[in-house]
């Protein structure tokens, strides 16, 4: 197994300056992604100013190898756009995305392609993310063919079998010739994971990897991702709306609201000692498993506003239960709260 793994793994990026500290796996700095709102001709003619959807409005974070970070938030917060931008499917408006030191933000497809081996994504819908006409063998071999891994059919098959078995589909030979419609949702997601693993990525993006799976199979897929990141020293950025899953599996949690990270820190701290009012409200409305535990949910009024019209000052102030006057004027930055129990726990609120 070790020989083939060395062949598969690409050489790490060379870092200039041997005395520099270890380069983080992923370093996102002030990333913004805005979409243009399509204007009808009448508005274009009357020169109405162009409106922008502030999907991602300035986020920064770092990830180390072997770390699992959860990007948590509701719909419209920008977590999916963040993942799409990191993957290079969407062009950022500004900011840097440094993967092993190399800035890939806005890189054109040709230069990005070889780097795609180090960066892979698992998608939300296991029923749609595999080509229904490809057998499992072909789905797992496709990345190898694209990137030129494996010199012969036999070698590719060996690598495919290894990836499938590491994804929990054993004995792999029984799965190789199956079509996706013959597999359950959990099995399909494992095939997708195997297809990503076969390239030996350093960073894996997982967009809601279990939200479309039955409850009884979720833990299996999540444990698989967890064990893989430990054994392969692979970083996993998990996008999810499920705080319970994030709390259970992630090392760090970043809570997003309307394009910004409003709280960021070790998972245990964010969940047990939330500092930002949004995080507190979000945690309070997660229903408890035990019927006897009656929570007092802090239900916010209304819904997340449109990312086209971001409120002035603190973007959360219209819905914040403890907003003050100054919150309408000043846009808070991430900083260490007074009541934090960990030095890497940050929140963007003026009142803490």
């Amino acid at each position, binding site marked *: 197994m070790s020989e083939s793994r060395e062949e598969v793994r690409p050489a790490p990026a060379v870092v200039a300056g041997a005395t520099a500290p270890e380069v983080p796996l992923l370093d996102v700095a002030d990333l913004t992604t805005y979409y243009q709102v399509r204007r009808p001709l009448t508005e274009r003619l009357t020169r109405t100013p162009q409106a922008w959807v502030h999907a991602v409005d300035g986020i920064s974070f770092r990830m180390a190898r072997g770390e699992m970070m959860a990007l948590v938030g509701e719909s419209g917060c920008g977590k999916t756009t963040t993942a799409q931008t990191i993957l290079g499917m969407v062009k950022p408006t500004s900011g840097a995305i440094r993967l092993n030191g190399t800035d890939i933000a806005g890189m054109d497809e040709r230069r990005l392609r070889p780097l795609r081996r180090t960066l892979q994504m698992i998608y939300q819908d296991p029923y749609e993310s595999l080509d229904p006409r490809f057998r499992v063998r072909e789905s797992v071999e496709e990345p190898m063919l694209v990137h030129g891994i494996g010199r012969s059919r036999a070698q590719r098959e060996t690598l495919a079998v290894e990836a499938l078995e590491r994804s929990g589909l054993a004995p792999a030979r029984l799965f190789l010739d199956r079509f996706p419609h013959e597999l359950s949702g959990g099995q399909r997601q494992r095939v997708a994971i195997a297809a990503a693993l076969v390239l030996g990525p350093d960073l894996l993006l997982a967009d809601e990897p279990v939200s479309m799976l039955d409850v009884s199979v979720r833990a299996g897929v999540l444990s698989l991702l967890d064990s893989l990141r430990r054994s392969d020293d692979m970083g996993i950025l998990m996008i999810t709306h499920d705080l319970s899953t994030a709390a259970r599996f992630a090392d760090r949690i970043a809570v997003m609201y309307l394009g910004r990270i409003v709280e960021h820190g070790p998972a245990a701290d964010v969940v047990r000692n939330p500092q930002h009012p949004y995080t507190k409200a979000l945690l309070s409305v997660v229903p*408890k498993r035990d019927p006897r535990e009656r929570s007092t949910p802090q239900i916010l009024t209304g819904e*997340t506003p449109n990312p086209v019209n971001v409120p002035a000052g603190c973007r959360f102030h219209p819905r914040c239960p403890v907003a003050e006057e100054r919150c309408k004027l000043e846009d808070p930055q991430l900083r260490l709260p007074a009541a934090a129990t960990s030095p890497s726990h940050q929140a963007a609120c003026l009142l803490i």
Partner: protein
Amino acid sequence: MSLLEVSGLHVWFEPPSAAEVHAVQGVDFALDEGERFGLVGESGCGKTTTILALMGLLPPNSYVAGEVRLGGQNILAGGEDSVRAYRWKDIAMVFQGAMNALNPVKKVGWQIAEPMAFHGIAQGAAARKRAGELLEMVGIPAASGERYPHEFSGGMRQRAAIAMALACEPKILLADEPTTALDVMVQAQILELLTRLCADLGLALILVTHDLPVVAQVCERAAVMYAGEIVEAGATEALYHSPRHPYTRLLFAATPDLYGRDAMISIPGAPPRLDTTAAGCPFRPRCDVPLARCADDHPELRLVEPGHQAACHRNELVGAL
């Protein structure tokens, strides 16, 4: 006498050129006035089909057996024609993906008023006024009745769907995965709305979902379905604290809790096919504590404690689960 009594409900589907699927296999339960009852299970267990059968909303080429007694009367006895009189008037439903089931070319207020005319409750201006009142009741300004569904957000559309279900003042509200596609904050809003409406209007609620914590927080009693059958039923507290069926226990263990410390497990295997009949307990292949008799002997739903039923042979052993 309960408000709703379901006994021996079976549903079969006849897909073209394939074996018959026995989607619901002998479901019995009762619902009292004002009660909030949860029907829990994973995909394919038959929970949606069960509540569709209560309203006679089954697809063509299907068969139904059993009785659904509403206030003593079996509403399925006369087929489609008999159940139509009760549909929406006594028992109404909020569908899965209701927010996408609103007619995009009709104003929301019109859609809410539509069933009122059919059941002879209100017409024209009176119906529209009542539609406005219903919108207010679900937390939407009455004037929004003049808007179209695409102008509403996801949460508002779900509220509108609830208002539509309440149009004819039913006694029973069926909610099929009402919050599954919604954010957790909006989910909390909708669940709080449903709970408040049930209390204010004296509505009985059957909440169908795969999300156990939702049922734990909203419903007083619940039934767990597996492979078309009810495997356990009782107070939600009892289901969590003293489960009497391995599936219930494992299902709770597979659901993560925000602050819980126990390991999140998964249940190996997959549910059985519903187009073949197999002997024994349907959960046996995945059970972690099977007995010898579970292979051939199909367990019946039996009372294990007052108000608590389970279909598992282990309950007959001393010192069960």
